């Protein structure tokens, strides 16, 4: 058989754009995913389960959880290193990357950015090791893209707070030890650290998902949950709080989705080299090669854009609409790539023997969560025109 001379990443000389440290971090996660995730993830996906506790401890040992945060047991790595870790995790499965995104970029980031010193000391070190799992409650059944309409309310009751409401599509909700919950108060939108064993807090698993099956998705119910005064995050009292965290998570996704694309692409190239029809490997046919070329060029362009956005973040000049551009492009292209790869794998492509359709169905969620594709489109439109099309 002929030997391929370049991988999709090699073709773009991506390695030349990375520091030794970034390459090293990437290679650690790649090895971990090869060894620990890929052999079992199809089964987890099929059964709709995830050994999240075990994985969290392992990921904590590696230093992935909150890796981009400074202090409190976090590694303090750069933005590109964090992005590359997300990419490699999502090459395993979007569910694994989601676990890490929610823990590090949403729950930990909220406490790190807006918490008091005591709150940080209490929660962050154990969340970094994976001993304590967090979740993040912003979205509600009736308020997705428009969180400003949220119905969850927190009222003062003497020195305490009382929380009431429902949050939906919450990753890790059923297994979390602590939830960061955003609620409307008389002082604006505020964040609360809610230990999940607080009376009145309950989580219900979302069943019958066709996407992100190797991920735990829940509804959170807050029924007169009484919290002490110091449960509130003191640093913010507006939507800037949750949106800051979401921006951080989106940043991980704009790298991550490309991992699902790369894994599918590699799988489709391997398959095409081995699958013989009409006496030739289907990779030798021009139609297949055109697919490979189109997909690889989109993948490489996406990764170059992601790296550019990562460097802007490291410089501290990254703007929210630039994160939108990245998420918009990466997920859209990744979804298109996984679909095209499925066509190369033919009937085999629809099974869990190959990662392609699993990635494809996962990306249907990724397309919608952390800011829908449509919202990111309108953010870009607003940046170009000054006209917010979502306020008509």
């Amino acid at each position, binding site marked *: 058989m002929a*030997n391929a*001379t370049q991988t999709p990443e090699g073709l773009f000389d991506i*390695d030349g754009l990375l520091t*030794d*440290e970034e*390459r*090293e*971090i990437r290679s*650690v996660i790649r*090895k*971990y995913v090869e060894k620990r995730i890929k052999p079992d993830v199809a089964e987890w996906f099929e059964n709709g389960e995830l050994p999240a506790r075990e994985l969290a401890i392992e990921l904590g*040992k*590696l*230093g*992935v959880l909150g*890796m981009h945060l400074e202090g409190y047991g976090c*590694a*303090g*790595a750069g933005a590109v*290193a964090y992005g590359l870790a997300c990419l490699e995790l999502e090459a395993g499965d979007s569910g694994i990357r989601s676990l890490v995104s929610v823990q590090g970029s949403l729950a930990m980031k909220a406490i790190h950015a807006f918490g008091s010193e005591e709150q940080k000391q209490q929660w962050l070190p154990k969340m970094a090791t994976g001993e304590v799992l967090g979740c993040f409650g912003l979205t509600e059944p009736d308020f997705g893209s428009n969180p400003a309409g949220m119905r969850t309310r927190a009222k003062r009751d003497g020195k305490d707070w009382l929380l009431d409401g429902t949050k939906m599509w919450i990753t890790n909700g059923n297994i979390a030890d602590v939830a960061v919950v955003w609620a409307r108060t008389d002082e604006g939108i505020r964040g609360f650290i809610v230990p999940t064993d607080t009376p009145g807090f309950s989580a219900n698993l979302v069943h019958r998902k066709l996407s992100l099956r190797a991920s735990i998705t829940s509804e959170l119910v807050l029924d007169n949950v009484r919290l002490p005064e110091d449960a509130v995050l003191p640093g913010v009292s507006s939507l800037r709080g949750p949106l800051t965290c979401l921006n951080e998570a989106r940043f991980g996704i704009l790298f991550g989705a490309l991992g699902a694309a790369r894994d599918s692409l590699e799988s489709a190239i391997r398959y095409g080299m081995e699958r013989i029809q009409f006496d030739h490997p289907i990779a030798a046919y021009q139609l297949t090669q055109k697919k490979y070329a189109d997909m690889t060029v989109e993948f490489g362009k996406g990764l170059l854009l992601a790296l550019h956005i990562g460097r802007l973040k490291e410089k501290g000049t990254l703007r929210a609409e630039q994160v939108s551009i990245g998420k918009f492009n990466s997920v859209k292209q990744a979804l298109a790539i996984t679909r095209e790869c499925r066509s190369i794998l033919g009937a085999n492509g629809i099974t869990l023997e190959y990662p392609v359709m699993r990635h494809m169905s996962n990306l249907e969620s990724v397309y919608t969560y952390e800011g829908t594709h449509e919202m990111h489109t309108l953010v870009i439109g607003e940046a170009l025109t000054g006209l917010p099309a979502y306020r008509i």
Partner: protein
Amino acid sequence: MNIAVCVKQIPDQSVPGKLDPGTHNLVRDGKLILDDSDSYGVEMALQLVDRAGGGEVTLISMAPNGEVSGIRTALAMGADRAVLVSDPSLAGSDALTTAKVLAAAIRRNPFDLVMAATESTDGYTGTVPVQVAEILDIPSVSFAKKVEIENGILKVQRQTESGYDEVECPLPALVTVTAGVVEPRYPSFKGIMAAKSKPVDVLDVAALGTGPLTTSQEIVSVRAAEERASGTVVVDEGDAFRQVVEFLEAIKVI
């Protein structure tokens, strides 16, 4: 407990390798990575130092250029420092020259134990470690699958074809570690970032004080390995099990 671990930085095996047409040596001008077979020795050394309650793990390596990225991987796993002998004159060194250089580098710091892989993944001579032991004038135990130290005595389970031997010897000593016998830890991100600031002494041959080194071995020619003959296909017509059993008996598996 101070342990010197010999580690080799080799070309990334995911990139197709090339031989220099003139010298027949492996071309090593690209990025080098830590030889996977060395990660087992590094892991064992870290565990031994940990169990001993203190000491240092020093990496010993040799490279024709100043490449350190493979060494950084082992530092990120937790090794304390590294000595890298880097000298253009070492390009194409044979096993004995390599052993002389490594032994001289090991001697620069006090050590209780030297560890190495049984062989490198790129060169595969498998002769360097015992030569190092001979030059250092210390006992060597090869093919270790388990290593313990009790009251200054080295206790090794030495892998054999049929099981293992239990071998003891006094320290200092050299042990070669069989690949796959421990689970090498992943470098943590904090480890990776800390590895940047760990000391790597880069020395040239003159600084070693070995005197002149001459490589007397020459690779005269290189041939492609013979293609494997295709195996025997047994078609099952009800008696395949008999043929399989006969085959296994013939090669003395059963």
